[in-house]
């Protein structure tokens, strides 16, 4: 473990404090800044900047001219002297419109501030008050939201009286219910998260949790909503002034100018149009900015254009799988690359995977999260969506080329729909909750084989029975929520078998299940395989699961296959240090409780920064300079076993926690 001397301590402490605030702001501004960099964002930002600039400098530069009364030029039309004409006291309308920006914008912002503040208070009340009183607060919000906002504004304007103060309060409070609803929804979302539960178990009060944990986490969407709302407030305010309920002379805003201009609209249309146009432009500025930011902030991903450079030509550093059990394999993959959008541009988490699956063979794909195993499976099943990209020298399913047709051709869709079954990790989200199980299963044969409903239903029941779902006729009538997790996974497997599959791709099919259910599902997969001669590609992070079910195991690390061996030899003949480390890291039922568990030091490689040499070198006890410089190719030993390691099969030094902490995951 890292030990700190007395000298080091205060320094690291002060660094901790000082850096925090600045970086937090920088991070926040960074995302907003990025959002405004698109063409639309640029327009919105320029417009908003212009409005705000005008609000600040307008009265300073042109305040006097706007108020100057010229009795010689009463109610004139536009001329070279007065571009937009003059009002009934001979004041220049152009300057008055410019100067009115400040009051119009300031009042709109003030009203928005009042609305947001009142809304947040009201919206947070359900959280602060606890269950029973909270329910009352929610009901109050719901009732308030049900009133049209404009009606509320007029109602409050009458109550608070004519004038600036009354109008600001009226618009602010009129908007409050909307923000209250937004806040209470956001609060409800965040308060269900574990960190709020953790804060409660620590004993923090509700107010403190609200201020420290909840509000900072809902701040961003709230500000975006407020920006959108400011545009609305501007319009509402102009409306009130236009009706004579808002700003009163001698003060003036756009609404009042519009009102005055309207009287002379037949004499001098510009006098009425100008304030109208500015109202629209300013409202647009706020709304556009809000929309642009909402789009970016809402997505929560960096705005990086996905410009793919073509995958480098295949270097052929992977030996094709030799010793195939079948001369015509179900699936052949050669030099597969998958490129997806990462936080900082396109990354290629799968870089040159080659393997083949024979008829009826079960192959396991193992690796840590981020190793590219799931992407490999998705690529095989043609489920990588744009802008993700699949490249391969060869990707053949049942002898049909998939990589150059990309599943767009109709024949391919039908081939995949009937011959390739996919089972996902989470059966809760991969079944449509609004459709009966039988209908959902029947869809597959109806779509691809053109069968009628009756036939499709019979097939669904038959497949459910094959997946050992008890009482399949009855269960076919039920909805997914009426199934338990294990039964749902059986239904998924039944769905994968609806056609006449030659290959079932199962992506972590038992990870979400209990051990007893896991055993059942794995057994089912094995039986189906034996009965129907179906090949299985089983993806799992658990090497023991794969070892139990599969004939052959492919171990993936950093987007490559690093070892390929028969699963019967996992325990005895694994040669790659990573495979051996994975096996050792699983705590068995016979692990010595008095000794630390074996661990793999370090972290998996970030797909954005693959090292030039062997990707596992930093975590490998056998690594030397050669490993770090030159990436070992996956080589075949002649018997179908493949390994990518310069030191394959060499004895490993024993690694325990004591040796590795400080250089490993801990630091």
């Amino acid at each position: 473990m890292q030990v700190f001397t007395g000298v080091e301590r205060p320094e690291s402490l002060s660094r901790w404090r000082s850096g925090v605030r600045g970086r937090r702001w920088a991070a926040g501004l960074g995302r907003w800044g990025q959002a405004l960099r698109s063409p639309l964002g640029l327009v919105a930002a320029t417009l908003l900047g212009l409005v705000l600039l005008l609000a600040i400098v307008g009265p300073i530069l042109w305040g006097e001219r706007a108020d100057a009364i010229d009795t010689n030029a009463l109610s004139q039309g536009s001329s070279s002297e007065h571009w937009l004409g003059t009002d009934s006291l001979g004041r220049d309308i152009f300057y008055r419109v410019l100067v009115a920006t400040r009051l119009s914008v300031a009042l709109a912002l003030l009203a928005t501030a009042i609305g947001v503040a009142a809304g947040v208070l009201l919206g947070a009340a359900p959280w602060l008050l606890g269950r029973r009183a909270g329910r009352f607060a929610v009901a109050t919000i719901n009732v308030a939201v049900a009133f049209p906002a404009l009606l509320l504004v007029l109602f409050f304007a009458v109550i608070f009286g004519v004038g600036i103060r009354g109008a600001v309060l009226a618009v602010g409070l009129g908007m409050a219910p909307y923000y209250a609803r937004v806040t209470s929804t956001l609060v409800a979302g965040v308060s269900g998260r574990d960190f709020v539960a953790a804060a409660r178990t620590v004993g923090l009060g509700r107010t403190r949790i609200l201020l420290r944990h909840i509000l900072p986490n809902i701040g961003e969407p709230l500000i975006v909503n407020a920006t959108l709302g400011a545009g609305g407030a501007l319009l509402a305010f102009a409306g009130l002034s236009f009706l004579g309920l808002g700003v009163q002379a001698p003060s003036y805003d756009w609404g009042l100018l519009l009102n005055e201009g309207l009287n002379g609209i037949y004499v001098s249309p510009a006098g009425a149009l100008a304030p109208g146009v500015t109202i629209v432009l300013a409202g647009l500025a706020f709304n556009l900015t809000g929309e642009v930011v909402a789009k970016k902030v809402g997505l929560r991903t960096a705005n990086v254009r996905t410009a793919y450079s073509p995958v480098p030509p295949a270097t052929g550093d992977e030996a094709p799988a030799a010793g195939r059990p079948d001369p015509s394999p179900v699936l052949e993959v050669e030099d597969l690359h998958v490129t997806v959008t990462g936080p900082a541009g396109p990354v290629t988490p799968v870089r040159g995977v080659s393997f083949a699956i024979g008829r009826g063979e079960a192959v396991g794909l193992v690796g840590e999260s981020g190793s590219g195993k799931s992407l490999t499976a998705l690529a095989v099943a043609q489920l990588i969506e744009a802008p993700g990209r699949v490249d391969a020298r060869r990707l053949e399913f049942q002898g049909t080329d998939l990589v150059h047709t990309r599943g767009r051709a109709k024949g391919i869709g039908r081939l995949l729909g009937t011959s390739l079954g996919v089972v996902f990790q989470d059966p809760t989200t991969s079944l449509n909750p609004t459709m009966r199980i039988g209908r959902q299963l029947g869809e597959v044969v109806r779509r691809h084989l053109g069968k009628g409903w009756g036939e499709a239903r019979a097939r669904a029941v038959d497949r459910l029975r094959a997946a050992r779902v008890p009482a399949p006729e009855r269960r076919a009538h039920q909805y997914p929520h009426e199934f338990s997790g294990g039964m749902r996974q059986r239904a998924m497997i039944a769905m994968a078998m609806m056609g006449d599959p030659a290959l079932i791709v199962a992506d972590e099919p038992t990870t979400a299940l209990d051990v007893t259910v896991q055993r059942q599902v794995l057994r089912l997969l094995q039986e189906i395989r034996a009965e129907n001669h179906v090949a299985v590609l089983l993806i799992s992070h658990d090497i023991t699961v794969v070892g139990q079910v599969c004939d052959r195991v492919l171990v993936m690390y950093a987007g490559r296959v690093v070892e390929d061996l028969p699963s019967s030899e996992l325990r005895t003949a694994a040669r790659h240090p990573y495979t051996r480390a994975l096996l050792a890291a699983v705590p068995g039922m016979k692990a010595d409780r008095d000794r630390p568990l074996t661990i793999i030091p370090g972290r998996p490689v970030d797909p954005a920064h693959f090292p030039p040499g062997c990707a596992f070198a930093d975590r490998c006890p056998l690594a030397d300079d050669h490993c770090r410089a030159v990436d070992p190719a996956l080589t075949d030993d002649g018997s179908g076993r493949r390994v990518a390691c310069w030191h394959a099969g060499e004895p490993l030094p024993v690694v325990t926690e004591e040796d590795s902490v400080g250089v490993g995951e801990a630091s």
Partner: protein
Amino acid sequence: MSELRFDGVRVRFGTGRGGLIAVDGVDLVVPSGQVVGLVGESGSGKSTLARAAVGLAPVSDGQITVDGAPLRHGGGSRSGRPVQMVFQDPYSSLDPRMTIGDSVAEAIPRRALRGSGARRAEVVRLLDLVGLEAARADAYPGQLSGGQRQRVALARALAAQPDVIIADEITSALDVSIQGTVLNLVRDLQRQLRLSMLFISHNLAVVRYVSDVIAVMYLGRIVEYGPAEDVLGDPRHPYTRDLLAAAPDADTDTLTRIETDPVLRAIADAEPADPHHPPAGCRYHPRCPIGPLVLPERSDCLTIEPATDHPNHAACHYASDVLTAR
């Protein structure tokens, strides 16, 4: 550290027909300085029991005590909370907007340390304890790996100076390679600080590695309880035996030990019982390989709830002769 005791604890969600009794009369003791491993499938109520102990689930009956003193969960108590919990998902249990130093500091009881200097020093000490550098204190959770986040979560739990720590599936969201480092840390901390701990997991091998005592939960009840060696070495409840058989132990190929008997097979493929409608009598009887579905003469399982005065406190009528029946 202290003893955590559950006495007849019952947790009910909702009322009437839609109601669900997630925890039904659980008696469980976490002895001082020991680790009790709690295993069971999802829906067995093990997480609800844990949440009840930290005040996140309502206890409708019975009581939970620490060293004899009932737990109170009034809002914002200043005395700190005697039971702390580490959550399953380290990606959601840390506030993404707060540095990990702030997160840990927040948990330190106000009465314990006054002055920001002392509190910061304590944060550094706690981070050091879980194997994180002091400089990490100004990192945000987003900059840490899952294993490191779980270390922070442990440091935060320790910061509250609890009497008992509850670890709820703390390794199930982690990769195998990282799971080991967290388990080693838990084991080291427990031995170093003599922590009393309730360690919840669905993975028997993981529970076995850290626990002194093991409790097995099924449908809201504890069905077996005893020293780890006894429960794992000589399991008395058929459910415990089933769990053991299903454990992913690489040394034995569990899939080859499948019964060929169609009756046993049908039982093994049966759906887990619905917690909304727990079966009468022994709750395990619809899935039991030594129960009335296989041996019709054992009709008492259908009506009479089994007592727990058997070896390992196994709640099974035939706990004593469970080995001969198979």
